[in-house]
């Protein structure tokens, strides 16, 4: 039996407050949440409905010029130089005057992610923990996304599609673990889109995938779809081949290489395909692969609910396709969150961390706060679910 009320809030209060620090990629997010002590969380699997109140959700993104990716060292520098300022701002927004009295737990991203940026944030987290005498919880970034998604959408037991710059996984809960049913064998979907955006030299603001989505909408030859490699392998998928292929097409397009029959009419030399069409084709192809492996996982676990999390999850076309798939299933439903929550943020780390904390999980030795680039979703023991 799951009892989320095992560890009582500080100072006899009837609510918990958690600070969440996220910095596993190019976004630095600080969040403060409040969860009331509820009778409903005494028993049963109610971890998706904690009545979480968001007191602060601040994010700052390290942005690079068009055509450039972000380096770990520059990203780490961004996080180092902004971290304390953002924490201060978040605390002020959450009206927390005395953290050592008000905050129950500090949650930080332990991984997976880029080592240097993760490390920059954990240094601040450890320091805060020691000066305020508040316990620390290390959170798996993916679990953070899942728990935030569940809390926002109230999806009880969905199949989770986690799609971001560094991750592509289809996850389903079973016996106290978020099991990975399918995943990318090479690059992540967000990374694939980012890199294609770099090839096209389109801006990184607000983020590259968003701009690809906007361009895809403007595709002029939607019926004449460029067929890209479709690389679903069982439950897994791979994307590097697709990227290489479409990068080649884009380069030929820029060079006006009339020999490319996909792009130019071999007789008239007329251009058949635009850059927008390529964006459209890439999205259609990649998303079809994602929806397919999600559907397979759903068939395996007999679930009709999908929760899309991660930065790429804010793509409306992906949501639409997932919806079409779910519509063909009895009571099928797709849940997605808006960019405040599906793009990396501190609130989600606080949400998952607070669940962990309420189940009695606390770091007692700072040696256990070491961050790690590779931290698989299924390594986490999910004590807060049945």
């Amino acid at each position, binding site marked *: 039996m799951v009892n989320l009320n095992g560890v009582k809030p500080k100072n006899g209060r009837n609510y918990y407050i958690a600070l969440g620090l996220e910095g596993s990629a190019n976004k630095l997010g600080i969040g403060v949440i409040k969860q009331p002590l509820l009778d409903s969380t005494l028993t049963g699997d109610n971890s998706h409905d904690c009545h979480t109140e968001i007191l602060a959700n601040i994010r700052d993104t390290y942005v690079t010029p068009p055509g450039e990716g972000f380096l770990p060292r520059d990203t780490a520098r961004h996080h180092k130089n902004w971290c304390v300022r953002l924490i201060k701002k978040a605390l002020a927004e959450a009206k927390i005057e005395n953290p050592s009295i008000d905050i129950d737990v500090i949650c930080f991203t332990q991984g997976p992610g880029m080592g240097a940026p993760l*490390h920059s944030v954990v240094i601040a987290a450890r320091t805060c923990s020691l000066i305020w005498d508040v316990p620390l919880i290390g959170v798996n970034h993916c679990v953070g996304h899942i728990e935030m998604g569940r809390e926002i959408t109230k999806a009880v037991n969905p199949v989770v599609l986690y799609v971001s710059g560094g991750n592509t996984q289809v996850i389903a809960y079973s016996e106290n673990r978020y099991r990975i049913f399918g995943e990318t064998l090479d690059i992540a979907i967000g990374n694939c889109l980012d890199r294609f955006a770099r090839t096209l030299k389109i801006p990184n603001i607000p983020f590259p995938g968003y701009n690809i989505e906007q361009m895809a909408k403007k595709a002029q030859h939607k019926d004449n779809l460029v*067929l890209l490699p*479709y690389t679903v392998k069982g439950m897994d998928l791979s994307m590097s081949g697709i990227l290489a292929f479409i990068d080649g097409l884009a380069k030929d397009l820029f060079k006006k290489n009339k020999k490319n029959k996909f792009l130019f009419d071999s007789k008239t030399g007329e251009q058949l395909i635009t850059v927008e069409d390529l964006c459209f084709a890439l999205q259609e192809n990649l998303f*079809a692969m994602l929806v397919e492996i999600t559907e397979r996982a*759903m068939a395996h676990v007999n679930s009709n609910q999908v929760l899309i999390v991660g930065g790429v999850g804010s793509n409306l076309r992906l949501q639409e*396709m997932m919806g079409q798939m779910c519509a063909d299933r009895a009571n099928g439903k797709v849940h997605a969150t808006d960019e405040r929550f599906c793009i990396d943020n501190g609130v989600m780390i606080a949400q998952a961390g607070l669940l962990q904390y309420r189940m009695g999980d606390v770091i007692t030795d700072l040696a256990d706060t070491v961050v*790690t680039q590779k931290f698989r979703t299924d390594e986490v023991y999910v004590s807060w679910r049945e």
Partner: protein
Amino acid sequence: MMFLNPALPGNRWALQMKEKKISIRSNKLLIKLLRTLKEAQAIITNITISKMSVELVELVNQYLTPNVPISPIAQGAEAIVFTTHVHPYLPNEITKDIDTNKKYIIKFRPPKKYRHPVIDKSLTKHRTLSEARILSKLFQIEGLKVPRLIAMDAVNGYLWMEFLGEDLPNNKGFSNLKNFLWMYSSDGRDPYDKVVKETLFKVGEQIGLLHWNDYCHGDLTSSNIVLVRDSNDIDNWIPHLIDFGLGSTSNMVEDKGVDLYVLERAIISTHSSYSDKYNEWLVKGFSSVYEKQGKNGSKKLGELLGRFEEVRLRGRKRSMLG
């Protein structure tokens, strides 16, 4: 080799890049395990036609016309399977002599609305063709038993195959390996009966043949092995391998080891009390195929069983973690 920043946090996996691949494999195993367990539950309930099926069954009916009455028997994410008594093309004059009670399988890969039509058409065609191809190739292997392909419409995603198996006596269900083993472990029968031993040995032989010829099934559970009773000898059950939707050609020991492990887990999860012996017999049958191939066969068998053990350890470690 990349020099790692000494002052940055150590990554405990950084030097073990193999780990990722191993984890991926193990995940697949877990997925299959979960499915086996689900299947055990599903056997009791009949196939429920979801909202999806109603529409799709209508689509199939339109395609086949009322002249081909069908009943759905299975539905996966990728395909729906029906049975019918109607042969797709043989004139009655011909079929009536063969068998009036003959059944056929129709496997249909429905279009997916979420996919762009160009992608959808290309995938359906490609996958239907590739399953047909693998079935045909397997059909030619001496001693290997797979269903016969009767007709194909790759563009529309239809495969017709012969129906194999029968209903077991006393309502013990359809004659796949799982139900067969259950039959022998109930009603006071001997779960270690000679017939069981012989049948499992023959199942092992089938998998041995498959692997020896460098094919992998990809989804080898006890419900994907159908037993066909010899018309002359009621205790002679001839195992046939079905559903090659995830089948592939592969000469990798890893794929074969996973195939074996998946089947072992299926046996353990559904027939746990007797699984030790059962798996032993399976492996004996499997090994016999390789051992017949002389030195090279024995060498390959050694490698394969070694990997099987490795996969098994990985799987166990994984499921016990935390």
